[in-house]
């Protein structure tokens, strides 16, 4: 187990290096980041100032050296400064992280508390109306593009019915129901796909488990139907959904890029896209690093959770 964890950690770090290196190389191929300050013609920025900036950002050094300098700073907990606003990358990310986390957490709750119970229901009442509702829900969720869900939601509930705001979190409004209202559509848009994934996995695992010997035994010894389903069967049927939770997490990160664009949400995803278009490479590398870290940590936790819910699994 320990050997496995160490190995896991090593390859996790390797993923982080790979992700940030790709970004470093690509963003440098995009063009000179100094153009953010001045066009080649001038605009009042003297060649000396450009040279000083170049030296400050270490842009005059070879790419690998630049990367190593960046890596050295990261290890010491310094993510550098953004080019556009010249503020610490960690501060800028920290400001936006809350809005994205809020959305991600709500979407995850939606996915779990809609997907899993519906999955159980459609497995237990196989072939019934519930089963068809559940499967239609899953089929739709896996096929609808996140941005299309968002747009349809805006069209129906914001433009036509006027029930919900079309986005832009009303930060200045202290009255909480309007805040809560603004969260409804982004949460569902972001959470539907993972809910569909959870539903399908729970359903197929439940069908398998309900057919097993120990569930029959539980029934035979007289446990109530509800206890058999929720205590005996679901506990084992939860293993597949838990194992994909890390992928669900990545899905949120990628989904947040799209959802935040649709609903003008002031979060990490939108900031990441902006930093790409601005060629703000310190900020972009920082965001990518954070995404990759979240993924590595998430899949790590999923692996550990896996051994807890299913003690038969041993990593040797």
């Amino acid at each position, binding site marked *: 187990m320990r050997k496995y964890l160490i190995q896991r950690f090593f390859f996790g770090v390797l993923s982080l290096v790979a992700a940030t290196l790709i970004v470093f190389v690509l963003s440098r191929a995009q063009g000179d980041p100094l153009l953010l300050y001045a066009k080649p013609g001038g605009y009042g920025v003297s060649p000396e100032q450009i040279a000083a900036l170049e030296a400050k950002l270490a842009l005059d050094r070879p790419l690998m050296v630049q990367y190593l300098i960046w890596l050295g700073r990261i290890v010491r907990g310094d993510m550098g400064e953004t080019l556009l606003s010249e503020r610490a990358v960690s501060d800028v990310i920290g400001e936006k992280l809350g809005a994205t986390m809020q959305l991600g957490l709500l979407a995850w709750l939606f996915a779990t508390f809609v997907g899993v119970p519906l999955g159980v229901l459609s497995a237990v009442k196989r072939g019934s109306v519930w089963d068809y509702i559940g499967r239609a829900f899953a089929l739709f969720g896996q096929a609808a593009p996140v941005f299309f869900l968002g747009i349809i939601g805006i069209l129906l509930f914001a433009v036509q019915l006027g029930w919900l705001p079309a986005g832009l979190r009303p930060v200045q409004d202290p009255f909480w129901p309007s805040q809560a209202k603004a969260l409804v559509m982004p949460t569902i848009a972001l959470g539907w796909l993972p809910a569909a994934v959870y539903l399908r996995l729970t359903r197929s695992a439940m069908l398998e488990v309900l057919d097993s010997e120990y569930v029959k035994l539980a029934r035979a010894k007289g446990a109530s139907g509800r206890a058999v389903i929720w205590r005996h069967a679901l506990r084992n049927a939860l293993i597949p959904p838990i194992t994909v939770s890390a992928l669900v997490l990545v899905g949120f*990160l990628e989904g947040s*890029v*799209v959802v935040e664009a649709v609903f003008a949400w002031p979060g990490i995803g939108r900031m990441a896209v902006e930093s790409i278009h601005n060629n703000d490479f310190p900020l972009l590398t920082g965001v990518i690093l954070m995404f990759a870290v979240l993924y590595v940590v998430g899949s790590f936790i999923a692996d550990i959770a896996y051994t807890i819910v299913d003690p038969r699994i041993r990593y040797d």
Partner: protein
Amino acid sequence: MAQETTTADTQSDGPDIHNLMASQVIGIHEQTFGQKFWYVLRRWPVVPIAILVAMLLAAVFAPLLSPTGPRDINLRGRAAPPFWNQEWYDDNPKNEQRYLLGADHVGRDVLTRMLYGARISLMVAIISLTAGVVVGSAVGLVAGYYGGFIDEFSMRTVDVWNALPFLLIAILAAVTFGQSVSIVMILLALIAWAGGVRNVRAEVLTLKTRDYIALARISGASDFRIIMRHILPGVVNTIVVLATLRVGGLILAEASLSFLGAGIPAATPTWGNMISEGREWLSTAWWIAVFPGIAILLVVMSVNFFGDWLRDRWDPKLRQL
């Protein structure tokens, strides 16, 4: 089988006591047309296949089917609603064209652009999927067959690969290299290849211990021949099922990239681009964005449904995917 024989017999002449008893004994009753219809519909993915075939035909024959060109503008038909809105067409008598699914903000026919969009979207998905599946399967075959360092190395690469935030890298690549259809295809192939490697490898691991592989080796077959002639046919089911289950995701990824302005160049009609453009006109001309969205929804739903069906028939082990 039994059904066919009994139905054939009962058709002879009226209620026959022998057939009646026989069918009652095996619990079969005559199926009405409606029941047969539902039986076929439940057993075979008729509707999804019909939708997919229709979309493919529409894509192939787009120039023949579409009433206008995909870039033909008609300023008199700006934001013309779909055909059923008689009122609008009465109010704008100068507009001579009638649009089945409406027109966009410069009077381009939405249906025409959707047909041409189907070409791009389906072509991109199919080509990048093929490239990804060929590479992924090759890696899975080689890793599973040779084992050892090659196996370890490829599996770890897949792990590292899966941890990369591809959407952002794709946007960055699009900004760096400029938007083009080929960049999108390369990016999608890069996303696609790592998906099925693990399943293919696992399959190869069990196949290669079989006796017939050992016999092939004894009779002097080269590694390449063993992989291609003896192992590949055994994993082809898995590969096809995995590929089918992946098409939908690629179509969605292409649409998302286009929607974020990092996919196919905006002038080209694709479903993602159309939704992205139509978003600005949502409150006044909803049809610009909604119809392409429904097209994506239908295609991805059909492909997923078909993939599920194929998996249940060909490779039930993959049920957890």
